[in-house]
């Protein structure tokens, strides 16, 4: 295994009443491929140690051929959301050219408005070492 250093991705947040001059947010983004059998969906994820599980927009699951009508949802919560139904399936997360992780991942409409996935504790942080260096503008993962 090797350590990979990745620059944070910068997002310009426009002025609003709390931040009249706006600000730039640095977010630890990665490009991954989600796999369910032969279905593949390249997308972006944010490394998020605050998420219990790896979780993705429900639209991603539908695109991978996963059918929520065959599942009973679990209730999850986040900022602004409570009791959001989340459906879990085993999928593969590929880090192109580096490694693949088989993960029991959640899919929820609560992330459809965000449009990216979250790499959380179960399935990612419990198998991959991560070091954040926000001041330097980089984070590192061992894979």
């Amino acid at each position, binding site marked *: 295994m090797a350590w990979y250093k990745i*620059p944070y991705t*910068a*997002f310009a947040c426009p002025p609003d009443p709390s931040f009249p001059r706006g600000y730039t947010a640095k977010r630890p983004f990665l490009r991954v491929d989600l796999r369910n059998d032969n279905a593949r969906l390249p997308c972006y994820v944010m490394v998020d140690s605050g998420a219990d599980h790896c979780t993705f927009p429900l639209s991603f699951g539908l695109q991978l051929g996963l059918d929520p009508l065959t599942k009973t949802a679990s209730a999850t919560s986040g900022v602004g959301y409570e009791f959001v139904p989340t459906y879990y399936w085993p999928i593969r997360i590929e880090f192109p050219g580096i490694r693949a992780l088989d993960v029991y991942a959640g899919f929820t409409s609560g992330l459809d408005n965000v449009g990216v996935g979250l790499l959380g504790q179960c399935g990612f942080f419990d198998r991959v070492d991560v070091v954040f260096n926000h001041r330097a503008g980089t984070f*590192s993962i061992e894979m």
Partner: protein
Amino acid sequence: MERIAPAVTDFGKLLEGIPRGAWVAISQNEDRVLAYAAELKDAIRKARELGEQNPVVLRVPQLAGGFLF
């Protein structure tokens, strides 16, 4: 030994002019927008019609404010 991985694309430039709330399909080398639509499946379908079988997908958030997860 630490390897330097490339940064994720500069979304600010790439997504300039794309309507908020749109699902976007990007080329595999992440340098251009192939298609966008209100539904993810439609953005992917349009990209496939242009020859990109597995575009990279994301959504332009309705609001450009902070993320709190």
